[in-house]
């Protein structure tokens, strides 16, 4: 379990989580990218949607 840096809510890391996967805080909706660490995963704020994102 990791704490949201915005609202301190607990963010559950999925069992099948992968590095760079995006997780969202269930309380405030902030998005984070999972980064591998020696203890499993840490988080960093996800990149905001870019003007050129799409299909």
């Amino acid at each position, binding site marked *: 379990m990791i704490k949201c840096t915005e609202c301190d809510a607990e963010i559950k890391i999925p069992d099948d989580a992968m590095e760079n*996967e*995006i997780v969202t805080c269930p309380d405030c909706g902030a998005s984070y990218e999972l980064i591998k660490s020696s203890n499993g995963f840490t988080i960093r704020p996800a990149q905001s949607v870019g003007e050129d*994102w*799409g*299909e």
Partner: protein
Amino acid sequence: MKGNTNKPSFFILYDQLRWEEKSLIEAAQKKDIKLEVINCRENSIELDQDKSNYRDDVILQRCVSYYNNLHSTAAFEGLGAQVINSLHTAIMCGNKLFTHMELSKSDIAIPKAFCAFSNQSAMSILNKNGYPKVIKPVVGSWGRMIALLKDKEAAEAVIEDREHMYPLYHVFYFEEFVKRPPRDIRSIVVGDRVVAAIYRYSGDNEWKTNMALGGKAEACKVTSEMEELCLKAAKTMKGEILGVDLMESENGLLVHEVNNTTEFKNTVRVTGVDIPSLIIEHLTNHNK
């Protein structure tokens, strides 16, 4: 980045690990297929390296950023890799005017469109052809900056705004507003098959059908007419894995967009078709 001597079957190149990319990785793992993922944002590319490093490597392009996608495709294809889809497809699909002209050359049914390169000529051609019309940025996704121009006043307001934007937005691309049900069709092409399709319904108070704008999805049966049209569009764009968008006009189906790095989460959800596995199979067959 350098080519790996212990070569995987193929690579997935991404900049955001979304549901689609994760499902592709999991589908490969289930089939015990060795793949390597490359995070485009965390790597650099030696553009003048030995081309044997990537010769014949198969790279599935999944970058969500249009510019990351286009330029990393150019880099890897230039180094000899087979990028899916190719640079040609990325360029042609990534620009609505280019797409229109490519499809037009193959006599594929498309909405009528016109372009202009100044405010004055844009207003002139709009007034000549009448309203409503749809203005679309030539490069853009998820319905951003697409506007319905119902009359001259609306057109003048939008076009004047564009004057203060990046020069790409001074290339004015207009399409007819096609009379259709409040939905369009997203078809997923993998190789020489249309593997699944969905209806995309407009969200509340919205005329655009993009899922990114809150549209709803429903399964759509792939008809022989749809299949023929989508495969012809895919062949014209020289693409292998594409999302072909169709509108049901009064005169039959029209192709209004071909997506180079198609999303398929909603299509899998509502159709149950295992698109990630089909894509992995397609990539695997590339190496044979």
